[in-house]
């Protein structure tokens, strides 16, 4: 019934790419949209992942994910030929792609994955693309080559200076916003904290800013309200109204708090999965 893994690549210690058969979604999806994935229909979690790319002809979509908890750990353990339990989508509003002039694209960590299809489409629409990619350290920079292909200018920064410039993405962003060629739009995708600070910088220079929010989700169709955030004083559902919003209006602090609501249970589930794997491993060896 599909969802078969066609290729698998490890991009860094905890980041993986899967190309998965999903012909209807491959055909219907647009940049900026995501899917909800579940490994176990009986008792598992449903997690949202951006569609990082798609091949409508081959009927495959590409997912790039970071191993952070139980479900992503389970996914990382799947091999080519195996099937992902279920995939549903495409979900969310597509990115509004338009020729604006100069677009600065800022990616942090795993945020590079959802950023790539947007940057690619913005380039194809005729925009000048300046890309800033940031990560804690060199090994965590993903998709640099892909961005190099579509960017007119590419800046890489690392927190520890192990690669590119040392520092945070906000620094080159501030230089660009304050420079002569003031961008017409900033697209910022990464950890919540990063999006918050980038939005503060762009606000100072009055550069319109799009962020892509990664709230916790259940259904992805507007039915549960679990993904809600406050944007400009109004309640919005990230899964249907987003995931992209005006970064100058999002209440990031609240979003970050809601994101950590289940921390202790998530850790328990993850640990139980690791223990379980470990026990199976022991059995095999003995």
């Amino acid at each position, binding site marked *: 019934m599909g969802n078969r893994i066609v290729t698998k690549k490890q991009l860094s210690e905890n980041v993986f790419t899967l190309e998965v058969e999903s012909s209807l979604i491959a055909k*219907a999806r647009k940049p900026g949209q995501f899917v909800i994935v579940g490994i176990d229909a*009986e008792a*598992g979690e449903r997690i949202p992942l951006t569609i990082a790319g798609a091949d409508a002809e081959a009927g495959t979509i590409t997912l790039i994910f970071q191993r952070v908890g139980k479900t992503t750990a389970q996914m990382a353990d799947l091999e080519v030929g195996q099937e992902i339990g279920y995939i549903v989508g495409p979900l969310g509003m597509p990115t509004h792609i338009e020729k604006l002039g100069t677009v600065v694209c800022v990616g942090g960590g795993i945020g590079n994955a959802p950023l790539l299809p947007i940057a690619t489409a913005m380039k194809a629409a005729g925009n000048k693309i300046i890309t800033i990619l940031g990560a804690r350290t060199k090994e965590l920079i993903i998709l640099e080559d892909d961005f190099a292909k579509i960017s007119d200018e590419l800046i890489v920064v690392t927190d520890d200076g192990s690669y590119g410039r040392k520092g945070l993405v906000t620094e080159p962003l501030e230089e660009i916003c304050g420079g002569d060629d003031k961008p017409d739009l900033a697209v910022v995708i990464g950890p919540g904290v990063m999006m918050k600070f980038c939005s503060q910088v762009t606000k100072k220079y009055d550069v319109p800013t799009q962020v892509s929010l990664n709230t916790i989700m259940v259904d992805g*169709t507007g039915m549960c309200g679990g993904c*809600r955030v*406050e944007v400009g004083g109004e309640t919005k559902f990230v899964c249907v109204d987003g995931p992209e919003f005006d970064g100058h209006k999002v209440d990031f602090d609240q979003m970050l708090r809601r994101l950590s*609501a289940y921390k202790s249970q998530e850790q328990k589930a993850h640990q*139980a999965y690791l223990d379980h794997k470990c026990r199976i491993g022991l059995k095999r060896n003995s």
Partner: protein
Amino acid sequence: MTDSEKLLQDLLAKQQTEKLKPKDRYEIPSQPMPAQDGVVRRNNIEEVATGYTETQARLEAMRCLQCKNAPCVAGCPVKIRIKDFVTEIADGNYGEALAIIKENSLLPAVCGRVCPQEVQCQEKCTVGKKFKDVDQAVAIGRLERFVADWDKNEGSIPDVATETGKKVAIIGSGPGGIVVAADCRRAGHDVTVFEAFHKPGGVLVYGIPEFRLPKAIVKEEIDVLGKMGVKIVCNFIVGRTRTIRQLMEEDGFDAVYVGVGAGLPKFMNMEGEQLVGVYSANEYLTRANLMKAYQFGKGADTPIAISKKVAVLGGGNVAMDSARTAVRLGAEKVYLVYRRSEIEMPARVEEVHHAKEEGIDFRILQNPKRVLGTEDGYVKGLECLKYELGEPDDSGRRRPVAIEGSEFTLDVDTVIVAIGNGANPLIGQTTPGLEFNRWGNIVVDENCKTSLDGVYAGGDIVLGAATVILAMGQGRIAAAAMNEFLQQDQ
């Protein structure tokens, strides 16, 4: 022999010689529904009401006066021949009773459990009227459940007519969708049900909890569809994965039924609703039921708030289900905050009764003003206002009015908002030409046909949040119209 068995025997013996008189029937005590103990059941998710025994069922059925005009039938939205099936039960002919029910209702095991009988069939019952107490009416729903459960192992598969070659798409696998699928398949059409979630059943699986409607019952009904040759495609969101237009123009579907339910949670738009620990009932119940959060750490990994003190806002079935689920997830104190009085509560009377037995603290004529949070963004309390009843409003119910200065705070760590659902806009946004009213519900004619040819709709997306039996009733009407449309189209 128990007293009940003895009574039944005496009555049967008496019937041998003469017909029972109304007086004899009035003397039969109304049979209570056996239920799990209120304290024990706080700690399990098993069904609360355990069902009539055969003796109880026959005694209850004998209470029916077999009224000539059978007023009860008018109270049933699908017009089940109540008098006739109850008579069969009294005579011990359960198979015949079930066959009569199935003429009009395809899901008796479900409706017998969840219909709000006290405002439908049982409200009109002569016996209840005689005692001036609807609780004394013939327990039609319980009898319906009894025969449906009795049938458990004989699950018959309806006959399917010769293949017509026509394709029918059903969007949403709730009770309405299930009924349309069965009726269209019986007519020989090639039927596919598309469901957004990873399991079929609609509200019957993600909303109504296990302790009120065991999921095995719903699964059986879905399995019957499968055996009839209905295709069920989960993880398929019409409007996203494919649009209605694509289904009809590119994928060859000749007719479509839209049964997508309500599915847009209402919030109160009060301060503090974004705090961690505030849920819509939809999210809370979906996590708990569909995704089995009650088994967290024991086979499931769906997280849910670990609550000590919970406030549920609302007075309908959804609110009762949320409150009773919270109890089962281990909350020590659960408040149910409702701004009108108990008579106005839209929930089924039995659920209100069960909720009270389970220790839920009813706070009627109270309404929240804002949610109070800790510094790091978690719920720490609910500020409420006291209310009193004023003049009747549009709905004929007396309007609740806030008493100024009556603020007080409930000490809670979780708030579940269960004040109803609006219509999910997805189908509207992706189906040009489909007509909606100003509340976002699909407009249909008396045959459940929409403004688009070949497209029919029913259930909550048409009626607003309604009931299982109303969704099924519309499903029947729609299926009949669709079958006729497909025949003309030949």
